[in-house]
């Protein structure tokens, strides 16, 4: 049973009432890529532009004050949402930028002989996992290449769990960066356990929380993270705003990635000093209306209840795994049990490429993601080029899962 009243929630999402491809009801199972938005969030964005639009942290006029207030209140809401302090929340464009911000701190500190915590040398190790999204992989490859540090990774077991080998964390380990919940496998990683081991050797812990913060209660301190990154657009908010949460003492030492207006303390012709965090990391006029709307999205999610959302998604995941298991030639890529698992179900069908499977599903009105979902090495690990992925959110229901299973069956018949 689901703890959510989905029928009522669905009314909050205008897009869910549209049809696609030959008048089919839309069955949206691609929230892992981006979520749909409730009317309150869309209204908040529009309301900002209609009533309070101005550049933040600049100008002494009333609109600038009100815009700054709204922006900073959103920051406070988001901080509370993940259990952090307001000064620890940095607005970015998305999770990718947030992760790069940390990666660049290491690169820049190394180039400038900056604070020790962020300086990397040959022999130092950066530890990630084989299940990372490219956003938490490619930036670390760059850091390794530019600093001479070595990139290493935990493997993934055949059933899609993290192969956590504590002996890989040594005195050489300077940073451990891993995803909280895999966007492909659905696996929820034992981040607190990994973080504890990392902290024992003094390594910093970065968590890609893109697929967890929108879907379950996340508390940065319970996780034991030093940094977490997530994207607003995956949690009911508009595109263009993401978050880096970082421990205050670390942010205070960190060099900026982007420089320019709004992030300075004093500027002279030949040098400048930088503002304290979070402003130091927010060069230029930010995506203000989107940040304000993200605050509203957090409130909406809090009202519904993150634990209930998680349980709802686990319930749907169970139905999907069961339904797909009843079809011939389907292989799930990821755990087939529901322990420590969220609502991403990826699978391959014998003899059918995921692009073709996705096309048949699309023809049935079912929107899924096909391909490698920006986790190419993970797909290589499982010996597949591409998978079909369904992801669930608070507005999905049993009928959506039934449509997925029915559509997959239709594809199997079509390409038989």
């Amino acid at each position: 049973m689901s703890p959510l009243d989905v029928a009522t929630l669905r009314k909050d999402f205008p897009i869910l009432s549209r049809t696609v491809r030959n008048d089919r009801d839309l069955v949206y199972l691609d929230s892992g890529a981006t979520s749909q938005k409730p009317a309150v969030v869309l209204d908040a964005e529009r309301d900002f532009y209609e009533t309070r639009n101005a550049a933040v942290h600049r100008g002494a006029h009333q609109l600038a004050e009100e815009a700054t207030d709204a922006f900073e209140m959103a920051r406070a809401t988001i901080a509370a949402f993940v259990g952090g302090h307001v000064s620890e929340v940095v607005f970015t464009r998305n999770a990718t930028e947030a992760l790069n911000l940390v990666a660049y701190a290491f690169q820049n500190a190394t180039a400038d002989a900056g604070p020790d915590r962020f300086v990397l040398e040959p022999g130092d190790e950066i530890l990630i996992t084989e299940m990372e999204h490219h956003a938490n992989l490619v930036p670390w490859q760059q850091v390794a290449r530019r600093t001479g540090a070595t990139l290493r990774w935990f493997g993934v077991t055949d059933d899609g769990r993290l192969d956590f080998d504590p002996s890989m964390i040594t005195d050489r380990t300077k940073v451990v960066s891993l995803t909280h919940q895999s966007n492909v496998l659905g696996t929820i990683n034992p981040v607190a356990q990994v973080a504890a081991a990392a902290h024992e050797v003094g390594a910093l812990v970065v968590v890609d929380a893109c697929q967890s913060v929108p879907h379950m209660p996340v508390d940065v301190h319970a996780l034991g993270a030093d940094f977490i990154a997530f994207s607003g657009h995956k949690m009911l908010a508009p595109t263009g705003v993401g978050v880096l949460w970082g421990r205050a003492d670390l942010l205070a030492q960190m060099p900026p990635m982007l420089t320019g207006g709004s992030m300075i303390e004093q500027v002279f012709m030949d040098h400048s000093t930088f503002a304290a965090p979070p402003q130091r990391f927010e060069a230029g006029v930010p995506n203000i209306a989107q940040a304000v709307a993200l605050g509203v999205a957090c409130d909406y999610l809090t009202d519904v209840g993150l634990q209930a959302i998680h349980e709802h998604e686990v319930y749907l995941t169970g139905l999907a795994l069961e339904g797909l298991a009843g079809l011939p030639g389907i292989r799930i890529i990821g755990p087939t049990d529901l322990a420590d698992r969220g609502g991403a179900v990826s699978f391959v069908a014998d003899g059918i490429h995921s692009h073709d499977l996705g096309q048949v599903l699309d023809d049935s009105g079912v929107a899924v993601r096909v391909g490698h979902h920006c986790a190419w090495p993970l797909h290589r690990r499982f010996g597949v080029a591409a998978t079909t992925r369904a992801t669930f959110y608070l507005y999905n229901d049993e009928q959506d899962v039934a449509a997925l299973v029915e559509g997959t069956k239709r594809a199997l018949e079509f390409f038989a």
Partner: protein
Amino acid sequence: MNLESLYQEIILDHYKHGRGKGLREPFDAQVQHVNPTCGDEITLRVALHDAVVQDISYAAMGCSISQASTSVMYELLNGKPLGEVWPIHEAFVKMIEGRGKVEPDEDVLGDGIAFAGVASYPARVKCALLGWMAFKDATVQALGKDYT
């Protein structure tokens, strides 16, 4: 647009029974192309002699549309002089990228017109062109080699 008009019989047939598959010798150029959004890939070789396509051989991994379009390309272009090859190539690309607004000429494209439906699915355009772009790249390289 419906599924049957996208996945025409000819396409499904070429998908299941790809023509000209495999990598063969001799060849003048070999390229590897990938579709970074879905990970599909093709290794394709071209052998030219006196500006005639002697052989197109390939090993590919991908969806039905990309596999079938490469197979149809093999049938349409293999053995032809480049003077005939390029107009067919151009017409195919134009049809696929035409968003469904380009009327394909069966006299030029033969079985290739079965892919007209792909043009209505922008997400599949790259699939349909994977082999064709690889062929163009390989042929240009092979020609460059001829002249040096």
